[in-house]
């Protein structure tokens, strides 16, 4: 029985972790807004998850008949957040590429995202509580 270790829970857990990491990365970008030669970083998670759910590689997927088979294509697992550094652009004369306006909007968006994940997690916990207590 998968009451608490369902994939929905795992997805939410990784999403919250990704939002936390993203908060750290954005804070770091904002902190280095005046640092010469600094290049901003980015956290991708939601698109990775979307790819995973839609089957990013639908043409190549192995059919598993045994749990010991290698996984080919989408594993059905929840992806880990990934940090990438954008070192191809430059905003200023000092080769820094932090755009403070976009960072601030990303910060606000990420906070709302995080809050909504927590709300969703709380809702799931509440549903499970209803299921276990029977009321």
């Amino acid at each position, binding site marked *: 029985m998968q009451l608490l270790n369902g994939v929905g829970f795992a997805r939410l857990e990784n999403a919250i972790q990704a939002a936390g990491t993203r908060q750290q990365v954005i804070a770091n970008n904002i902190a280095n807004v005046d640092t010469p030669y600094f290049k901003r970083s980015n956290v991708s998670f939601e698109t990775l998850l979307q790819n995973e759910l839609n089957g990013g590689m639908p043409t190549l997927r192995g059919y598993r008949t045994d749990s010991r088979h290698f996984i080919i294509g989408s594993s059905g697992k929840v992806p880990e957040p990934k940090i990438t550094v954008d070192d191809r652009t430059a905003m200023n004369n000092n080769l820094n590429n932090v755009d403070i306006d976009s960072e601030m909007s990303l910060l606000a968006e990420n906070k709302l995202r995080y*809050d909504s994940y927590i709300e969703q997690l709380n809702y799931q916990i509440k549903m499970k509580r209803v299921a276990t207590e029977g009321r």
Partner: protein
Amino acid sequence: MKISDSFNISSSALTAQRLRMDVISSNIANARTTRASMENGQAVPYRRKTVVMAPNSVGFGSTLDAVMGQKPATQGVKITQIAEDPTPFKPVYDPTHPDADGEGYVYMPNVDLMKEMVDMISATRSYEANITALNASKAMISKALQIGK
């Protein structure tokens, strides 16, 4: 990953911007200081100071984490040195000034008030942006503490 790391990141930036502000204040305050130091009995004017900022990377571990895509490469910002602006002093003709040379010129500090004001606004705005980031982190942690309540 600890989310309180983002507190440290933002606070390092607040410290750096505050120090930058201190340096700017010092430049503005000394915009007409002709006797910052004495060299061979000769008064030397104040030289404008600038800060040098660098990302605060914490050694091999953080670089390895960054390459593996686990963590941002740097953890905030630091000021590596307070450098002196090498531009020449501005000569002003004022023979009545006690520090005037034989030809009546007195050398004024190489502080440009306009430049300092622009830097000051930039430092203020960066400080505010970091405060916003810090408040967002704080609100997120408070929210996470509500899980399961």
